[in-house]
């Protein structure tokens, strides 16, 4: 492996602008992680307009920092207040808050920070080794492979989203349809534009992401009565003892591996990884009843895993051009805005971007470790900022921000429409994630499908007979049918139990 581009990546990171935006990213990430409400996907969406003025590397370094920074920040509220700042820290609540009640909040936060750092770093190293290989493998992919890959990616994301699977697939279909609005790339014919000039070039990604994730989430949260938050004034003794470290070292090691693997899989990501790592530790434990009562491993495992997964979920995006989760879909959109199309050619055509972003994660994780151990008290104070004040400011930033993208009032209207849609979707059990993901993949999917059909001269069996696209489609069928098979098995089992 040629190490020159890797080393050059470091010189990219160490440019003052990039260092600054790495710091800005991780600080914002920590903040939104601490504040319940907006998640990383929403925050990154709302900040998309700022990235227009930045260099591509700088922009993505900042956005990536927000993503993994949020994993660190989300822990703080889980432990101290039993209020998970992020979905990926929900499971930390059980043992983290139990530790806090025993007066050991510092230990929990310290272990989480160290675990996150190790998980993140292990994942970056593995990412550096694995990503170029995957990208090299994918260089030979033609339109049929991309069709199969994009279909599988969308299906996997829909399958593991938190709502009902059917609803997630409906959201994905709506995303695919929205992507067809505008001029057809092949024939130039206008599609679904309703003779509206503003729709002639299609719907822009920015108002969709800002509306569905940003405004949608804010409107959804309006229905919740937030109780006054009682944040402790100070957190003592953040350094975990040697015994704590010894107790959690195994959990950190296993959490890193689980997190890395689940992060790479489309639809995996930080939340699933944290759940799986917690489940594994509980199962392995000699006294599983300790879990929920303040077991350090119960904090170390999920926090390590969610950070490792956040990092490794960049692999499918940077090597295949397929985002693995909702946040990656927004970063995909950010790359497209910058004129960079993510895919296997990225590592060879834009090595400075590829390695710059990956290597910035080392720096970002060091910054986060520094911030989350000695400066944790500072972030705890942020909790006193009331959601009632932050919400309208975020709304204004969104409305003004989306205008700055194209200086078009129509974009403000669009973002409001998608905000209302995002609210309705969340309310009715449809996750907006699959919609946004399908939207960004929509044109790629359509283009490769049409090209494939032309290559195959209309014979759709061509998809199955090519080895890679055939395998991917077989995986698609397995994933699609798995829930049905499971349901049938479960019914049989319950029937046999009843007959006993």
């Amino acid at each position, binding site marked *: 492996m040629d190490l020159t581009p890797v080393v050059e990546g470091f010189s990219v990171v160490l440019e003052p602008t990039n260092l600054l935006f790495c710091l800005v990213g991780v600080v914002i990430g920590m903040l939104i992680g601490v504040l319940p409400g907006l998640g990383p996907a929403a925050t990154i969406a709302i900040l998309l307009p700022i990235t227009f003025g930045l260099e591509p590397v700088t922009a993505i370094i900042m956005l990536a920092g927000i993503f993994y920074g949020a994993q660190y920040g989300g822990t703080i509220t889980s432990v101290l207040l039993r209020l998970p700042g992020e979905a990926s820290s*929900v499971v930390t609540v*059980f043992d983290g808050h139990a530790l806090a009640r025993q007066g050991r909040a510092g230990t929990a936060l310290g272990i989480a920070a160290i675990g996150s750092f190790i998980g993140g770093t292990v994942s970056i190293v593995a990412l550096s080794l694995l990503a170029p290989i995957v990208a090299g493998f994918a260089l030979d992919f033609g339109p049929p492979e991309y069709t199969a890959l994009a279909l599988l990616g969308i299906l996997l994301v829909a399958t593991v989203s938190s709502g009902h699977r059917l609803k997630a697939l409906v959201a994905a279909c709506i995303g695919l349809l929205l992507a067809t609005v505008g001029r057809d790339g092949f024939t130039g014919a206008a599609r679904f534009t309703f003779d509206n000039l503003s729709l002639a070039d299609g719907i822009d990604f920015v108002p969709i992401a800002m509306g569905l994730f940003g405004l949608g989430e804010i409107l959804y949260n309006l229905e919740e009565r937030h109780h006054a938050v009682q944040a402790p004034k100070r957190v003592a003794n953040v350094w975990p003892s040697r015994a704590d470290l010894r107790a959690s070292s195994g959990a950190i090691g296993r959490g890193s591996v689980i997190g890395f693997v689940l992060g790479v899989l489309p639809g995996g990501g930080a939340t699933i990884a944290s759940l799986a790592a*917690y489940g594994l530790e509980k199962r392995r434990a000699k006294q599983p009843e300790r879990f929920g009562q303040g077991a350090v491993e119960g904090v170390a495992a999920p926090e390590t895993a969610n950070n490792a997964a956040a990092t490794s979920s960049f692999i499918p995006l940077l090597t295949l051009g397929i985002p693995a989760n909702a946040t990656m879909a927004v970063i995909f959109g950010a790359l497209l805005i910058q004129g960079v199309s993510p895919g296997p050619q990225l590592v060879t055509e834009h090595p400075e971007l590829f390695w710059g972003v990956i290597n910035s994660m080392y720096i970002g994780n060091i910054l986060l470790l520094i911030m989350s151990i000695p400066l944790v008290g500072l972030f705890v104070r942020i909790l006193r900022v009331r959601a009632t004040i932050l919400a*309208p400011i975020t*709304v204004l930033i969104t*409305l*003004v921000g989306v205008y700055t993208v194209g200086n078009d009032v129509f974009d403000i209207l669009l973002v409001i429409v998608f905000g209302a849609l995002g609210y309705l979707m969340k309310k009715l059990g449809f996750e907006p994630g699959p919609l946004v993901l399908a939207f960004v993949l929509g044109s790629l999917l359509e283009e490769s499908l049409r090209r494939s*059909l032309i290559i195959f001269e209309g014979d759709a069996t061509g998809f199955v007979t090519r080895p890679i696209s055939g395998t991917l489609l077989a995986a698609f069928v397995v994933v699609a049918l798995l829930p049905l098979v499971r349901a049938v098995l479960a019914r049989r089992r319950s029937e046999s139990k009843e007959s006993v």
Partner: protein
Amino acid sequence: MTSDNSARLSDVVHEVEEAEHEFRPPVAGRLTDVVVGIAVVGLGVAALVGSVALGVGSPRAPGTGTWPFLVSVVLVVLGLGLLVLTGRTHDAERFTRAGWLVLAGLATMIAFVAVISVIGFEIPAALLMFVWLKFLGGESWRASIVTSLATVVAFYIVFVGLLAVPIPHMF
């Protein structure tokens, strides 16, 4: 994985989901499910009709409408699936009186976009802030007025002064 282990993990997931929904409105009734299912089918049919009008083409020569046609067919099938499942999913929430807060919030945004080209962003932005703080957030009169004005001034300095964004403004 034995069933015992998977049961334990599903317990964890269940606890997690409950923690997330602690402050949320109750689960919606069957009527909501039916309306959602019909809406999805309707959307699918509308897209289907639109795709056919665009020209569906053939596998050998895919046309402008081919892809949207395929997606709409899937959407209709999924919508019918949702209709079959009515009453069996529990992830939709009931629309409660708190929903009015959301409508009010949306109304402030629509007012903002409706008048921004005419009178600039300052007054609608201040009004939006004020409504959200005082009526949606329950802040005090004083805090609401001061925060609204301070935010608009800050926005003016950043967007008009520093970034020179051509956002319509009054002053």
